């Protein structure tokens, strides 16, 4: 790994000043589970590494109607206890990342800023309608999860901005969630990841849907066509496969990579999406009129 200058700020203000000073030459080190690999492969060679491990207040969690999760909260914490009952989709996604080692260090802010094409937690947070709050010496800015990612490993975050917290709005009463990922081996970045939140009317039909997938395209995406197409859909009598052929395909783009050709990857995404939706339906059963 190339040499760099190491900064270990202890406050958010100090961190933001360092970012203002070193900006494009600096990288923020959160859990380091992706960054240190990229640096060792020399895909990245920042002149300055700003470690966040000693910064106070980035690990706070508040859970009430709206939830607030500090950017340095780790997958381990996200996948357990209080978050598990308040935001089960977030807990499922965080518990699916990597191995126990990665979950002990990897953070929600790190995952969002890294922006892997099939990031588990970023995909789940899109479905939950999360907002991301960033700070810089220029002031505070809030980003919407649905358009936070703009390219391969690329987000709207400016070079001088620090992601400080994730805000998750209250979730609709009675909604059910589905979460599925496809990988050859546990612990890998999945080839496809799909998350959904489904609401139900009194007849057991879907009344509203929020759906996101990752893995096919350069970054996780909401699927507005699927969300609209599912409204009024009856999972018991309807044909989900042909609905998805009609409404998902236009929103999907799958690029060929080392793991497979474009057509095959699109199929993997479609199958994973179908599984997540069926799971959301299964978990929603019994909640109708509850």
């Amino acid at each position, binding site marked *: *790994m*190339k*040499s*760099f*200058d*190491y*900064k*270990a700020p202890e406050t958010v203000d100090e961190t933001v000043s360092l970012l203002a000073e070193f900006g494009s030459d600096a990288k923020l*080190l959160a859990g*380091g*589970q992706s960054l*240190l*690999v990229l640096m*060792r*492969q020399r895909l990245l060679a920042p002149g300055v*590494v700003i*470690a966040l*491990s000693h910064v106070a207040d980035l690990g706070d969690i508040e859970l009430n109607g709206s939830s607030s999760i500090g950017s340095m909260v780790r997958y*381990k914490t996200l996948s357990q206890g209080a978050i598990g009952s308040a935001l089960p989709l977030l807990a499922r996604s965080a518990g699916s990342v*990597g*191995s*126990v*080692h*990665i979950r*002990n*260090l990897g953070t929600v802010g790190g995952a969002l800023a890294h922006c892997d094409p099939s990031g588990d937690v970023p995909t789940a947070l899109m479905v939950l309608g999360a907002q991301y709050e960033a700070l810089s010496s220029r002031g505070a800015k809030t980003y919407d999860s649905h358009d936070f990612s703009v390219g391969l490993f690329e987000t709207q975050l400016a070079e001088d901005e620090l992601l400080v917290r994730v805000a998750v709005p209250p979730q609709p009463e009675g909604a059910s969630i589905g979460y599925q990922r496809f990988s050859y*081996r*546990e*612990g890998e970045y999945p080839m496809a990841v799909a998350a959904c939140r489904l609401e139900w009317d009194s007849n057991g039909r879907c009344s509203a849907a929020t759906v996101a997938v990752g893995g096919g395209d350069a970054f996780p995406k909401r699927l507005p066509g699927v969300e609209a197409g599912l409204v009024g859909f009856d999972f018991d009598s309807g044909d989900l496969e042909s609905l998805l052929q009609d409404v998902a395909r236009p929103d999907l783009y799958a690029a060929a990579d080392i793991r497979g050709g474009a057509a095959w990857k699109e199929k993997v995404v479609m199958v994973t999406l179908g599984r997540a939706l069926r799971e959301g339906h299964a978990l929603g059963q019994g909640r109708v009129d509850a």
Partner: protein
Amino acid sequence: MRELDIQMSVNERPVKQRIGVNTLLRDFLREDLELTGTKGACDDGMCGSCSVHLDGEVVKSCLVLAADANGRSVRTIEGLADSDDVLHPVQQALLDEFGFQCGFCTPGMAMTMVYLLESGFQPDQESARESLVGNICRCTGYDRIADAMILAASTMGENNA
């Protein structure tokens, strides 16, 4: 800064050292402290042979800067056994079940198992294998390794009873 004076507790012994800030925790343990039980292999966080405990939690020491471990406590494979004569139940179980061949992955496997079993995990063959997904063995078929984890869970349960 390019160099940093760090201090940490390693296997319950205080350690002070000046390091280059780009030193990985793994290399600090192996090269500065000569604790070579912690192995390095893949260099990209996949293989788990460098697993150690950082503040009681298992991590891959090739994915941690030594500078970031400043002020924290580290436990390595050298810190598991009570003495040269009495192995940790996980080490003893790996020996009893022949849960290794070349042994290169074994320290990392052991550190992951100890963390999981000390957290109260009760493995069976399938869940043991799943829980060890971050530790790769290129010799065996994992059956014996999982057997060792199951045996260790029962020994540790008896010791606590």
